[in-house]
């Protein structure tokens, strides 16, 4: 693995200039007249350079809409989005989106999928190929390089997709609930893979989730969103040192503190509209306060 790295002289952080996205007072609504539906309203936040920002909010709160705005697939109704000071006007290779469900091209092998970006830009160079080899190793898919996506498990598909995004050296990587639908085991494995990739690359990452454990394990900064129409309810700095460890995080007081804070806010937001997911939050708060009480006694 390291031999490949040395031989090619490439590394994940080689030529990346991490980007910064500033979202200011963004609103987005669909429909017209009396059927108008505001999904995002007065939303402002900054995705800081080189940091892993995680956005968490009740399901259906408009997170995916925000992603489409950030990616440039849609335009905001009001407000502005700027990447490195320049307004976002459309999709660009400075931002890369990893979608909820696998968007790997079914007609390409793992390797061809990863090499799609470089080839599409006419950069099928030796350097790109060795970067692809390195990424194949990093995500543990070397043995599956010639397999088609349908031959991969859900977790492998997600890893292939991470590799396919990372090879393009995007200034900002945007991930929309990328590990949703994976079983608990693969999910935790994916957190480790992903956070290792992030720590090595040091690029700006924006990660969207509804899973509080995922959020706390991954985040440098946690944006807690309100219910629809969504805006930032609260920003929590998750100052837990890296690399993090899933097992020790369970007993980490700071982690649990953040979790409590986040959950009570999410609980409030969820209760506002009886959106799904609120019961899990309520259960946690109840169980956690019981544990605090027994500790004190």
């Amino acid at each position, binding site marked *: 693995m390291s031999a490949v790295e040395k031989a090619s002289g490439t590394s994940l952080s080689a030529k990346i200039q991490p980007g910064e996205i500033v979202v200011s007072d963004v609103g987005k609504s669909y429909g017209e007249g009396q059927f108008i539906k505001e999904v995002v309203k007065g939303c402002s936040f900054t995705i800081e350079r080189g940091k892993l920002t995680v956005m968490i909010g009740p399901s259906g709160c408009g997170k995916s809409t925000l992603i489409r705005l950030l*990616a440039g*697939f849609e335009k905001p109704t009001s407000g502005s989005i700027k990447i490195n000071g320049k307004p976002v006007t459309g*999709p*660009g*290779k400075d*931002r*890369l*989106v990893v*979608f909820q*469900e696998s*968007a790997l*091209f*079914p*007609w*390409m092998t793992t390797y061809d999928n990863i090499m*799609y*970006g470089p*080839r*599409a*830009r006419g950069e099928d160079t030796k350097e790109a190929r060795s970067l692809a080899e390195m990424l194949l190793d990093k995500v543990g898919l070397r043995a599956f390089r010639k*397999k*088609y*996506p*349908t*031959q991969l498990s859900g977790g492998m598909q997600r890893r292939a997709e991470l590799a*396919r995004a990372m090879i*393009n050296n995007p200034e900002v990587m945007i991930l929309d609930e990328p590990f949703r639908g994976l079983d608990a085991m693969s999910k935790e494995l994916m957190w480790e893979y992903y956070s290792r990739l992030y720590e090595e690359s040091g690029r700006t990452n924006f990660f969207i989730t509804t899973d509080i454990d995922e959020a706390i394990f991954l985040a440098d900064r946690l944006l807690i969103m309100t219910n629809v129409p969504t805006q930032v309810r609260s920003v929590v700095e998750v100052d837990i040192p890296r690399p993090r460890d899933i097992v020790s995080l369970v007993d980490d007081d700071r982690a649990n503190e953040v979790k409590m804070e986040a959950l009570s806010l999410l609980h409030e937001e969820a209760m506002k509209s009886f959106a799904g997911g609120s019961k899990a939050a309520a259960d946690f708060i109840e169980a956690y306060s019981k544990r605090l009480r027994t500790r004190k006694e």
Partner: protein
Amino acid sequence: MSTARRFFFHRSTLRALISILVFVALWEVGARSKQWFGFAVPWVGNIPAPTAVLHVWIGLLGDPGYWQSWYLSLLRVLAGFLTAMVIGIPLGLLMAVSRNFNDTFFPTFEMLRPIPPLAWVPASIIFWPTQELSITFVTFLGAFFTVVINVLGGAKSIDVRYFQSAQAMGASKWDTFRRIVLPATVPSIVVGSAVGMGITWNVVVAAEMISGGGGQAGGSGGGLGYFIWNSYVGGAYEQIVVGMISIGIAGYICSELLRMLGGYLTPWLRTR
């Protein structure tokens, strides 16, 4: 060797063989009922028996006219089918990709599509200078509309996330077309051509019957459709059945070849 043995003794192969054998046996008994039991089973009693058909068929194997019929029908099917692919695939793709192109051509296309290919026979006999061209043209129509509709539908139902991903990774329009639209449409092209091939055989046989089998009308060299029609007119009932089975075999070979080619072109679908 072992593959062949496995094939012949495989359960589904055995079932297929038994099914065909039982069918042929019942047919034989029915057709020979008058001769064997003294009364003819209704309908089946009047058709030629399989053994008689086989006898005639073996006789025909040495007849160049019979093979000429095969050759002519195959030629027409291939010419019509390939022309339909060559024109139909780009047309379908263009309609899927370009709004303007679609707006211009789709209405005309949709108006012509419901017209059955056989309704075109008289018009095409008048229009085309030779009988051969008119039959091939009608055959072409049989496959053309199916191919276009399948390609268009396939290309239009590509998941929008594939385009978004490609675009975000810096793909140009041409690259998106070549490496997303084209491969994503291949399965629909394969399906469309398989269906189109079936229609082509239906159409060529009917067209040959109606138009009198092209230049060599009068002889036995006007294609399998004409071969059947001629046998009927001449009262050679065994030959009718030989012609029918020949078409079945020819159609099967064509579909099987297409399936193989289709499987080769879509390796990612073989892996499910």
